[in-house]
C-alpha cells in the first residue's frame, strides 16, 4: 500500500501543476488506480489542492461528496436502490445536471458533460461496492449461523486394527522381499522326515530334546520350526534359491517368554558363492533396517543340526529400567552338507546360508510388549492399540 500511496501522491501533484480541476484529477486517478473514494477524501484535505472556479464542477463535487456521505450511512439493499434512483435514475440529480448542459457554452459543454458522466460512474461504482459489501456481510452472517462443532467425532464405523504379528510379519517380508526373497509356505502338521530327519536331526540326536514336540501319532507332529518348508522348497526348486518361510510353529513350552505356539520366519539362500561374511552383512543390515537404528550386534557361536558353522545373533538392548543387556534375536548358519544331501543338492557345487527369526519376539521388542502371552489373549483393549500397518 505504501508504494501505491507514494505513486498516487506523485501523480496528484503533477496533475495539479498542469492546472487541472481537482475533481478531474481525482476521477482520473480513480479510473487509473481503482482505489476507494475515501482515499481521495483524505487527500483532498491533506494535499490542499486548489479548486477551480467552475460552478458546475462545484455542484458536481458537492453531489459526489453528498452521495459519498449518504452511501456511508445506509445499511440495507433497499436504501442502495433508493440512492441509485436519487443520483443515477432517470429523475436523478445527475441526470438533471446533464439536462443543465445546454445552458453552458459550447466550449464548456464537453468538459462538463464528461465531468457529470465521470461522477455517475464514480457513484455507481460506490453503490456497487456497497452492495457487494452488504451481500458479503449477509453471507458471512448466514455462514456463521451455520457453524458446527468440528471437534465432534466422525459418524459411522471406526477403523479396526491389525494384530501386531501381522504388522511385524509384513515388515520383515517387505524388507527381505525387496532383495528377492520369495515367500514360501508349507503345512503345519508335518512328518518326522521334514521336521527332523531331512534337517540332519535323526531320532537319536540330542537336539531333538531341544524342542519338546507335539505329536499327533508316531510319525505326524506339529512342526517345531519352519525349516521344514525350506526342505520342501529345496526339493521343489532347483538352486540358486532365495526364500523366506513365515509361519506358525509349536513347542511344548509356556511362560512369559514362551507360548506353545509362536511365529517363525526363516530365510534361506542357496548359491554357488555364499559365505558367512555375507550372512553377517545381510543380518546386520536387516536388524538395523528393521529397528531403524544402529544397533550393537554380536554373533555368538551356537548349534543347530542343520547349519555348520552356526551362530546366534544378539542385539544390545536398552530395557525399560535403563539397563543395557544382550538379547538373542535370531539364529543362523551355513547350510549343513547333510541337509543338501537329503534334498539332492550337491554340497560341493552349492553353498547356502539360513537364518531363523522369532516374529513374536521381535514384536515384543519393537512394540514393548512385556509378556508374550498377551499376543494370544485377544483382549481388544490390547489389540486396538495397533491400528497402523
Amino acid at each position, binding site marked *: 500500500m505504501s508504494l501505491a500511496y507514494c505513486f498516487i501522491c506523485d501523480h496528484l501533484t503533477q496533475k495539479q501543476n498542469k492546472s487541472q480541476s481537482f475533481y478531474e484529477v481525482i476521477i482520473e486517478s480513480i479510473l487509473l488506480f481503482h482505489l476507494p473514494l475515501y482515499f481521495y477524501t483524505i487527500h483532498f484535505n491533506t494535499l490542499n489542492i486548489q479548486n477551480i472556479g467552475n460552478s458546475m464542477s462545484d455542484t458536481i463535487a458537492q453531489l459526489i461528496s453528498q452521495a459519498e456521505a449518504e452511501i456511508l450511512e445506509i445499511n440495507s439493499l433497499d436504501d442502495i436502490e433508493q440512492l441509485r434512483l436519487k443520483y443515477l435514475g432517470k429523475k436523478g440529480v445527475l441526470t438533471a445536471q446533464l439536462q443543465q448542459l445546454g445552458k453552458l457554452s459550447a466550449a464548456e459543454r464537453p468538459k462538463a458533460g464528461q465531468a457529470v458522466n465521470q461522477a455517475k460512474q464514480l457513484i455507481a461504482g460506490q453503490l456497487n461496492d456497497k452492495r457487494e459489501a452488504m451481500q458479503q456481510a449477509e453471507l458471512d452472517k448466514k455462514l456463521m449461523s451455520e457453524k458446527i462443532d468440528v471437534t*465432534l*467425532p466422525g*459418524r*459411522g*464405523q*471406526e*477403523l*479396526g486394527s*491389525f*494384530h501386531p504379528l*501381522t504388522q511385524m510379519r509384513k515388515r520383515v517380508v517387505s524388507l527381505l522381499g525387496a*532383495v*528377492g526373497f520369495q515367500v514360501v509356505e508349507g*503345512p*503345519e*502338521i508335518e512328518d518326522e522326515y521334514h521336521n527332523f530327519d531331512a534337517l540332519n536331526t535323526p*531320532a*537319536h*540326536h*540330542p*537336539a531333538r*530334546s*531341544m524342542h519338546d514336540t*507335539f*505329536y*499327533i*501319532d508316531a510319525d505326524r507332529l506339529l512342526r517345531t520350526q519352519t525349516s521344514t518348508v525350506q526342505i520342501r522348497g529345496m526339493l521343489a526348486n532347483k538352486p540358486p534359491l*532365495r526364500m523366506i518361510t513365515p509361519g*506358525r510353529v509349536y513347542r511344548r513350552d509356556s511362560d512369559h517368554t514362551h507360548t*506353545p*505356539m509362536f511365529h517363525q520366519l526363516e530365510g534361506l*539362500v542357496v548359491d554357488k558363492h555364499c*559365505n*558367512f*561374511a*555375507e*550372512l*553377517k*552383512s545381510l543380518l546386520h543390515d536387516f536388524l538395523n533396517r528393521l529397528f531403524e537404528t544402529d544397533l550393537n550386534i*554380536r*554373533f*555368538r*557361536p*551356537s*548349534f543347530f543340526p542343520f547349519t*555348520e*558353522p552356526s*551362530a546366534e545373533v544378539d542385539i544390545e538392548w536398552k530395557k525399560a529400567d535403563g539397563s543395557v543387556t544382550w538379547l538373542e534375536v535370531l539364529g543362523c548358519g*551355513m547350510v*549343513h*552338507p547333510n541337509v543338501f544331501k537329503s534334498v539332492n543338492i550337491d554340497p560341493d557345487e552349492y553353498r547356502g546360508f539360513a537364518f531363523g527369526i522369532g516374529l513374536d519376539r521381535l514384536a515384543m521388542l519393537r512394540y514393548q510388549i512385556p509378556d508374550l502371552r498377551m*499376543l*494370544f*489373549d*485377544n*483382549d*481388544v*483393549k490390547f*489389540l*486396538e492399540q495397533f491400528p497402523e500397518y
Partner: protein
Amino acid sequence: MKFSENWLKEFINPDASSEQIVERLSLLGLEVDSVEPAAPLFSGVVVGEVLSFEDHPNADKLTLCQIDVGQDEPIAIICGAPNIRHQNLKVAVATVGAVLPGDFKIKKAKLRGIESNGMICSSRELGLSDDHDGIMHLPADAVVGTDFRNYYDLDDQIVDIDLTPNRGDCASLKGVARDLAAFYGVEVCTPKIEAVESTIKDQITIDVKNPEACPRYLGRVIKNINPKATTPLWLSEKLRRSGLRSIHPVVDVLNFVMMELGQPMHAFDVAKLTGDIIVRAAKSGEKIKVLDEREITLNDTTLVIADEKEAIAIAGMMGSLDSSVTLNTTDIFLESAFFAPLGLGSFAVNARKYQMFTDAAFRYERGVDYELPKVAMERATQILLDIVGGEAGPVVTAEDHNYLPKPVTIELTQNKVTEILGLEISCDEITRILKRLGMTVVASSDAEWKVIVPSFRSDITIPVDLIEEVIRIHGFDHLPMVKPNLKVDLPKTSEASLEHDFFKQQMVGRGFTEMMSYSFVDPKDQQLLDPKQAAIKLSNPISQDMSVMRTNLWPGLLKAAQYNLNRQVERLRLFEMGTCFNQDASGEIIESFRIAGLIIGELDPKQWGEKSRKADFYDIKADVEALIAPVGRLKDISYSDQNLHPSLHPGQSASLMDGDEVIGWIGALHPAKAKALQLKQQAFLFEILVPAISCSKITHLKVLSKFPSVSRDIAILVDETVKIAEIRKEITEIAGKLLISVQVFDIYRGEGIPSDQKSVALGLIFQSFEKTLNDEDVDKPMAKILESLKERVNATLRT
C-alpha cells in the same frame, strides 16, 4: 550346567576379569545363562564350638548353650534346633551385630527371661540351601572364630552355562577350561592322576554281552570303607555350587569326578550283588525299580547292568534302588564305562522315553570321551580312599576294540575355510587354533592339513565342523561384512490372485479387529462349534483345554468374545485368518486356510449422530460381500439354505456356495450353542475358505451404452415364503437383454398387507445399445415380467 567360578580357576586362570571370562564363555558358544553369587551377602557369622548345653529352664524346646566363638569368654545363645545337643559341635554363629540375608540384623534378645547373644544358623538362614532340618553341623576341624565366609570360600560366583547338544565335551570343568585355554592361549592345570595300586585281590568278573553298546566297561571293588565318613566341606560346597546335593560320601565323590572330568560313574553295594556283573540288553518287559523309586518297564533296546539275578542299573541313566550304596555299605563296586550313544537302539530316545533327565544321561546322550573311563576310575579311587578309606582291588576292564570309536581324520584346506567364512585366516592361525583345541594337525601339503580329532570331540566329523571351531576361537567379531550379491529378478506374480493381507486390510477397513488364537483348542468347544468334524487330537497336549487341532476358527473367536464381554466390552467386531485342520474319511489331514469374523452388539460404535441399532444378519452379510466383491465373483457365489452349518441358527444362516461347492457359512450363532457357551448376547459369525475367494479374474471392460437408460419402479405382493433371490432370478430370466439392473429398495409388511405376505419394491433399469428406449419398448418386457411373476410366485402388482 552350573559350576563355581573359583573351581574353574583351579584349572585355568587367564589374565582376565570375571566379567571378561563370563562374556568369553558366551562368545565361545558356551552361552552363560546366569551368574549368581555363591551365597547371598551376610556378615558377622563365625565358626563356633558348643562348649556346653542345658535345657532352657522356662521352655521345653529351647536349649541354652555356651558357645566359644574365639573371644575371651564363651557367649550364651539360646537355640531352638534339637540337633544342637552335641558336645564340641562346630556351628555357624551369627554374633550380635551380624546381618543375615534379607537384611536380618542379629541383636541381643531375651528369650523366656534368659539373654541370648546371637543365633546359631541353619544353612537356609545363610542362603546356602533350602535345608531347614536344624542347624548346620560344621566339620570338626573348623577353626573356632574363623569368619564363616572365608571358611566356606563364599566369595565366589555360580556360573550357569547352557550347553548346546554338540558340546558334551564341555560338560565338565576340565572341558570348559580347555575351551577357554584355546582362546586365551594358556595351559589347563589338570589334577595329577596316578594309577592307584590295588591292595586287595577282590574283583568281580564283568561279562559284556553287547559290546556294540558298551565297548568299554571298567570295574573295581573297594572294601571296608568307613560307613561313618562324611563328605568334606570343600567337596560338598563344590557340588552345591554345581547344583548337586550332597547325598553320600561315595556318591558325592563320583559326582565330583563327573563334574571335574566329565565321566559319569556309578557305585553298587557289593553286599547286594549276586555273582558276576553282566552288561546286556534288557528283556522286553523287564522291570527295574530305580533310585527315584519309579518302577520302569524296559524295552529290549535298552542296555542294563545286571547281576546274575536281575538288572541293577539302566546303563548310563540310573541305578536300581536295591543295589545302591547306603549308610551301612562297607564294600563298593565302582563302574566307569563308555556306553555308545547308538549302540543298542538310541540312548537318547530311551532316556526321553523313561524320563531319565539325569546328569549321567545328559552326558552319555551327547557322547562321553571313550578314553576317559580309566582316568576317571583312578581319580575317583584316589579321592575315595582319602575320604572314606578302604582298600582298592584291581581295575577289571572289559573292552572290545572293534566297537570302540576310531580317531577321526579330516582333510582341511585353507581354501575351504576361506570359502565358507568369506575371510582368509592365515595357515598359522588355523593350525594354532586347532592344536589348542586338542587336535593333531599334520600338514599334507601347502595350506592343506590332515586333522586328527581327539577322543573327546565326537561332534567333529567333517571339514565344516573344523571351520566352525576355527571361527569360534578366532571370533565372529573378526569376521568382515561383505554385501551379498543378491541379483533381483522381477517377481513372477499373478494380478488375479489376492494376497492374504488384502483380506485383512478389507476387514480392518470395515472396523474389525484382527485377533490370533492358538491352533489347538478345547475339544468341548470344538465339538460344540463344528460337531460334524472329528478334530485331530494331540497325543501329548500341554493341557486338556488345548488338546485338539481346530477344525474351524469359531472356537477361538467365541472364546475371545467371552473374554472381552467379561471385561466390560459390549460391542465386538473380531476376525481371524489362519489354518484349520480336518481329516478326510481315510484319515488324511487336510489343512485349510480360512477367514472368520464375529460381530456382537451395536452395529456402530457408540456415537452421537446415529440412532443405535443392533447388528444383524444383513450387516455381517455386507461384510462378507465386501470380501468377495473385489474378487469379481460376487455374482458367482450364492447364499443357500441347504448344507447349513449345525452351529448356526437354521432360520438365520446360509451356506456360501460356489456352484455346488460349499465355501463358507454365515449367520446367527445357534441359541443352543450360545447357551452352552453362556453367551448372553447374540453373535453373528461367518467363515470362508480363503483359497475359494483368492483367485480373481482380470477384468475385461464391457462396452458402455451411449443411450440413456429408463427406470421403472414396481411394488409386488408375494407370500412370505417367496425368496428375493427367486424373484430376481425370475425377472432376469424373463426380461430379455434390455434389463440391465434390478434393485430391491423396500420390503414392507404391516398395514394394508395380508399377514402372510410382504410387499417388495423393485427398481428396474432398462437400456439399449442401439437406440433411446421409449415407453413402449419397456412396457413389453415389464408386462412379461409381471405375468411371469404372477405365474411363478403368485405375485400381484401393488397399486
